[in-house]
């Protein structure tokens, strides 16, 4: 895996319209981002389609990277995961006739916030380890697989409201641990 500085240099090159930098960014990160899309969508053709959209988004919007203040891999992972989850939810939107699919606002945190946040990101595993196994598993299922409250409740065989309560308490505990 390349260093964050290397990835950042490639993102900034992409923002300047440098195609070689963009293709090099693809070579360094596409396997990780494809893995993330596959984990959410569990379908190769769809994951490939989303990955293509994700990299075109990165090509078009690399100049926003500087403004959002995230660390380089966090930014790429978030763009990929959001793309995959939007696709996943769109499968259901058709069925449920919901007319709202809003985009994540693209203004990010301040650089200060990102600096604080990145020093805390390494702690997430330790903090999840402080939760009961099922509860940590539910948080991971929501993040890595894009599961909804309903699906999490079914997976763990608990009522929907119990799952909501579980997850909200887990988030409170995680936040306490992350900022301890």
């Amino acid at each position, binding site marked *: 895996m390349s260093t964050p500085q290397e990835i950042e240099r490639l993102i900034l090159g992409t*923002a300047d319209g440098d195609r070689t930098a963009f293709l090099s960014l693809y*070579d360094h990160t596409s396997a990780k981002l494809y893995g993330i899309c596959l984990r959410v969508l569990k379908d190769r053709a769809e994951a490939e389609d989303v990955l293509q959209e994700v990299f075109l988004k990165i090509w078009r919007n690399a100049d926003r990277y500087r403004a959002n203040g995230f660390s380089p891999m966090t930014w790429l992972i978030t763009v990929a995961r959001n793309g995959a989850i939007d696709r996943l939810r769109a499968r259901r939107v058709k069925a449920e006739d919901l007319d709202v699919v809003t985009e994540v606002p693209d203004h990010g945190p301040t650089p200060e916030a990102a600096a604080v946040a990145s020093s805390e*990101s390494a702690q997430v595993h330790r903090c999840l380890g402080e939760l009961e196994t099922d509860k940590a598993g539910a948080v991971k299922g*929501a993040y890595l697989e894009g599961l909804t409250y309903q699906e999490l409740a079914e997976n763990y065989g608990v009522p929907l409201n119990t799952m909501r309560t579980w997850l909200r308490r887990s988030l409170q505990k995680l936040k*306490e641990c992350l*900022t301890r």
Partner: protein
Amino acid sequence: MSGESEEERDDDVRAGEYVLHLLDPAERAAFEARLEVEGGLRQRVALWTESFAALAAEVAEVAPPAALRRRLEQAIAAAPRAERPAQPRASRFWGRLAGIAAVAAVVVGVFVALNRETLFGLSPAIYIADMESADSPFVLRAGYHPDEAALVVNRSAGEVPPGRVLELWLIAPGASAPVSLGVLPDEDSVTLTVPEPLRPVLAGATLAISDEPPGGSPTGAPTGSVLAAGPLNSV
């Protein structure tokens, strides 16, 4: 807990649910309206985003098919980046807000003076919200006149989509759900009366406009896109 209020803890949890994509569409729209204007909330989202991204370390890398790289190579050759404006949309939005702040004194003066003339007899506005969004053409300004409990909403840009209505929402500081202030008639200037229980929470609250079916949201929460939002600031 290190002195965090219940509201702050609720915001932490809500921001976590937002990053995990666990909010339903109406909750998500309400949260995003607050994100447009609340820096503290964006920091909470940033912390969760950075923290959870570390979970991706455990996702196995899978090489995508070689054809994908070739398709991307062709796509970027056909769409050179350099033609795009260099400035990110978000910066333009916040830049515009800063611009508004810079001329606020002048604009507020004009606004109050105009209203004193056109809205005969209303007391001077004590809070003003400029509502807009980077994603929609709508620009509205609302002023709250305390003696009459009147909220005057002026729309200077944006057309109501056919067969839809605009609904005005109040998001009190720290509140997780918006409260409807009513459906706005399709007019450039509308005056509403703010219900008594909501008057004390106007300071620091956010106003937002959503796009709804005729008669307003059937659920009591926004169901359509948030077209514009902005905080109520003291004049």
